């Protein structure tokens, strides 16, 4: 059984799942679920739809170049029979998976580097620049008109919604 990749989202299509569309030039489009099939029928470009693998790869969200991806590949060469091949492969899968997960975590960490500092700086900037919006409670007590000014505006908004 061959595990194919979905044309739209690049996830694995397991046997018995999804639908395949054969165009008149014999190109086969496989879809993992009706969501992907519908998006294809709507003529959406997977590179422009945020949840697809194509989008994430294009924007550098996911790890793209790695030696662990080389193992999972379509090979059209018939393999010479070897008794221990399956056993060795199964053993290797576990190891390679572990390595790949680690590398992906590292990639994510690198990508998120400096994010907390950036958020911190932005928060400081907002506090510095928008203190005008915050009215101190003591100021309101001195000038009660400040509270009343905002009241009719609110009413107007309600009327407009109706």
């Amino acid at each position, binding site marked *: 059984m061959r595990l194919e990749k979905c044309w739209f989202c690049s996830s694995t299509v397991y*046997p018995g799942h999804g*639908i*395949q*569309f*054969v165009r008149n030039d*014999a190109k086969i489009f496989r879809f993992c679920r009706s969501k992907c099939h519908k998006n294809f029928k709507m003529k959406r470009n997977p590179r422009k739809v945020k949840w697809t693998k194509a989008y994430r790869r294009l924007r550098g969200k996911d790890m793209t170049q790695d030696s662990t991806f080389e193992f999972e590949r379509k090979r059209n060469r018939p393999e010479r029979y070897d008794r221990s091949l399956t056993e060795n492969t199964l053993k290797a899968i576990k190891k390679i998976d572990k390595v790949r997960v680690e590398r992906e975590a590292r990639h994510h960490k690198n990508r998120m580097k400096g994010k907390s500092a950036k958020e911190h700086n932005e928060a400081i900037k907002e506090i510095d620049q928008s203190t005008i919006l915050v009215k101190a409670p003591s100021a309101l007590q001195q000038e009660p008109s400040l509270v009343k000014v905002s009241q009719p505006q609110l009413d107007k908004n309600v009327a407009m919604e109706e």
Partner: protein
Amino acid sequence: MRLIRSCCCRFLFVARLQQQRTFIQMRTVLKVVDNSGAKKVMCIQALKANKKGARLGDTIVASVKEAHPNGKVKKGKVVYGVVVRAAMQRGRCDGSEVKFDDNAVVLVDKQGQPIGTRVFGPVPHELRKKKHVKILSLAEHIA
């Protein structure tokens, strides 16, 4: 309000694209994808198929509506044909589904032997199950 209307238009547009496909039934016009001489046939009966009509791989009786001037099959003849492509999806043995771009047929005689000597475009491998191995061997692509 305008926003809501634009949303509606978009929805209708999408609904139009996702057309509901149905069985091949009486008066369905199918493309002929062999060199028998016929170009278009109209289904007049689905043979031994579902009550509702024929699907991918089923045999139909059809009338020739358009034909090449000097082909084997003439316009107005009643012929048998195997549906080799259908726009309506058909379940495969593993539970997945397959569908094609158009409705196409290959003309056969009563014994199930193809009339033409060539078959154009992709055909499904399910034809083997239906004992149309000759069509499969003539086909350009098998999907």
